[in-house]
């Protein structure tokens, strides 16, 4: 057989074979960015371990790169160099200005006694004269609870709570006050006891806060016999969130889920311990405190077979490190630092204030556990 014949045979045999396999390159993967892996991925504003980067979002008044974040100076905040290293308040113990606040309180659920960590956020503007400061503006920016269950203010509660329990001197009460004065190289800070109610009228508040009455001495909160089946709207209860049920609503998720409407009353007070002042000029200070809480569950809904569990209430855990954490924003609106958080004049527009509150929660994110 001549070479050309062999070549023809080879060609023929190759032709009858079917090349049925091809290499494949799968399309690139559009994966959800993994927050916390240290890699800046699409959809993330940052991904570094820093107080300036929370949930891969840059916290207002911080700037972040791929290696870290640094605070922004200005409006009462000073620091060194272009990165504002060692950022601190220009007025060491003067509380004047806008502050984001997070009250961290601990409760035990009444079923397993498990610790639940509650964050309640506020926007404050303080004005200080001498050693005393007072609240000039405030917004209640909602609640988030973690532990055996997770609880959040419902959207209706979030909106309605913004302006309740005024501390700015409106509503017929004087403004809430505190003190801040130099001490031992730092600042000694107090924030006086203040009473608050949710889901009931102000009639359940003490007439005189300065008398510091215990909650048990006050008129009992409205109650119902069976929050699961009750259709009763007990006297004294209100429906601030407009959901048609008495009390303030919280969305519960976790091993049980549903909406719990409750009547609540509490007081909180904060003071640095003797000899343990907060650092002078610190942008973020944490002040220990005490609190008490009463709660009656008035209605549970959207709870399926777990309604009975939702009807139980929590009790305070005074042995835990209850505290308030204050983060300095800036001194005045109209400056970049304050405007980065305070979206507009407080109490002028609900939507604007909700945006402000979202920034406040970002500045001081919820801290689970101790």
């Amino acid at each position, binding site marked *: 057989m001549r070479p050309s014949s*062999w*070549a023809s*045979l*080879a*060609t023929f*045999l*190759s032709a009858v*074979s*079917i*090349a*049925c*396999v*091809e*290499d*494949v*390159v*799968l*399309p*690139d*993967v559009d*994966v959800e960015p993994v927050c916390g*892996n*240290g*890699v*800046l*991925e699409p959809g993330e504003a940052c991904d570094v371990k820093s107080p300036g980067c929370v949930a891969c979002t840059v916290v207002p008044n911080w700037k972040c*790169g*791929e*290696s870290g974040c640094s605070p922004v100076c200005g409006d009462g905040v000073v620091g060194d160099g272009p990165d504002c290293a060692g950022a601190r308040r220009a007025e060491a113990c003067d509380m004047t200005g806008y502050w984001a606040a997070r009250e961290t309180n601990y409760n035990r659920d009444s079923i397993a006694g498990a610790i639940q960590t509650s964050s309640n956020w506020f926007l404050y503007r303080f004005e200080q004269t001498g050693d005393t400061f007072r609240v000039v503006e405030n917004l209640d920016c909602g609640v988030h609870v973690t532990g055996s269950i997770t609880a959040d203010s419902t959207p209706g509660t979030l909106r309605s709570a913004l302006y309740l329990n005024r501390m700015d001197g409106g509503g017929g009460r004087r403004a809430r006050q505190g003190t801040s004065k130099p001490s031992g190289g730092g600042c000694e800070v107090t924030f006086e006891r203040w009473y608050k109610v949710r889901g009931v009228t102000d009639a359940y508040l003490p007439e005189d806060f300065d008398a510091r009455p215990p909650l048990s001495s006050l008129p009992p909160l409205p109650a119902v016999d069976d929050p699961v089946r009750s259709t009763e709207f007990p006297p004294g209860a209100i429906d601030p969130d407009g959901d048609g049920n008495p009390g303030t609503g919280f969305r519960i998720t976790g091993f049980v889920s549903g909406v719990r409407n409750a009547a609540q009353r509490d007081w909180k007070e904060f003071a640095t311990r003797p000899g343990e002042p907060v650092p002078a000029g610190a942008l973020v200070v944490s002040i220990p405190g005490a609190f008490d809480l009463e709660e009656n569950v008035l209605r549970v809904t959207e709870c399926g077979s777990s309604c009975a569990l939702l009807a139980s209430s929590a009790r305070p855990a005074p042995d835990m490190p209850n505290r308030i954490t204050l983060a300095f924003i800036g001194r005045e609106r109209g400056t970049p630092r304050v405007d980065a958080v305070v979206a507009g004049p407080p109490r002028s527009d609900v939507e604007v204030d909700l945006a402000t509150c979202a920034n406040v929660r970002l500045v001081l994110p919820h801290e689970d556990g101790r």
Partner: protein
Amino acid sequence: MRRLSVAATVAALTVARAAHASPLLDTVGPAGGNAGLQGVASGPGAASTYFNPALLAASQEEVLLGVVMLSEQIGVTLDGRRGGDVPLVVGDRDILGADGLPIPNDTVPTQWLEAGCPPGTGQGECPPPGFAARPRQRAGSSGKTRTYLALGLVKHLVPDRFSIGAYAMLPLSSFTTMRGFYPDEREALFSNSLHPELYGDRMTALSVAVGGAFKVLPSLSLGASLGLALSNGVSSRTYVRDSTDYDKLLLNNSVSTQVDVAPNAGVHWQPSRAVRFGGVLRPPSSFSLDAAVTATLASGTESGTQRRETYDYVPWRIGIGAEIDVLRRGSYVMSVAGSATYAFWSTYEDRHGQRPSVYGADLAWSDTMSGALGVRHAYGPARGFVDLLYVPSPVPDQVGRSNYVDNDRVGMAIGGDIEIPIAGARVRPGLSLFAHRLVPRWVRKDDARIRDELPDDAVLGSTRDPVPGARGLQTNNPGWPGFGSAGWLWGGTVTLSVPL
């Protein structure tokens, strides 16, 4: 990138050293002789010269002529990527590592590989003719079909005492090619593809064996054979006038070809009429290419290096087998056959002469034990066989830098022949078909073991600013973030055995 005009004198000396290698024969199995996939103890014939030369003593005298077809359908699937691109800024070559030295020039922007770099002198352009695109797996190796001519001879020079044989499988197309590729990220600069490690160019190896068998006892034969292959030596001297224009290259080559050999040894023992045992020992073999390259630049600088490439590597193998007649009724005989081969793949050297263990002790290859089982039938002038085969892969999961593509293989072969009198001669035409399944395999890379081609702490040389996009893993490793492979080897053999 700057255009360099360099006049250089380059002297390249390439020396090839060769030893016989027969990965093709091991994969396809013997042609003719009713040997199926178990030539170590079954089917004496011309192919026994390679598979067990001791069996030549039991073969009939013959001339074997055959055509073999092997279709290699091995598909590689590369996983989609989730980022990891080397940023375009690397193309400016103004990137310094933490040691203050420029990052290696083998790191190129991923975009260049996928889309090329257009020629030009502006920003984002490369010196003419530009950087050609090399999309991932565009130059893969799947879907190759090859044909071979099988030739064989068995002659009893001293009847019942000494026999000789010859066997060859000659590619009819793509005659003996060798294709080098890197099994890691370096391959991105060439084909940017993954290739099956133990197939492809190894299936074009020239395979020729000659040998003999000596019947030392009526029931015992010993055999030996030599594998033959071509050995090429190349000496290249080049004068490079302009390193950016190889059209101006002056080149003198010296090429030499020689025959090289490697021995096989076999034994065949037939303690009774119905029982037959066989064994074979094969030493490692490969086609190694040693290249010494020296370069002299016009500036007087001299540089030189040596490289070794290894093709068609086959390790030490020990094979044993048995064939037992289980039913004999008149002119009908049924036999069962079994065989096993232990291969020392842990000594494997890849095409660049490196052991896979360089990528980590846990990524070293393993020795393997493969096996085959089957039945044979003979009824008067007709014979037939069915064989099943299992060949485990020596390659561990490729979780690191390396991308050796290989799979466990299960196979089946069926065939037979029949003796027909033609013009006074009793010729024996035969046909066999085989199909091997490469068991699907998929691996996901461990990012921590991939070379990060752009360090996180790299800085721009001009400003010392961090390099945007340097955080995390950046790699052009074509196998990252994972890949799979599967496929078929199938084909057939048509043979004609003519008695001498």
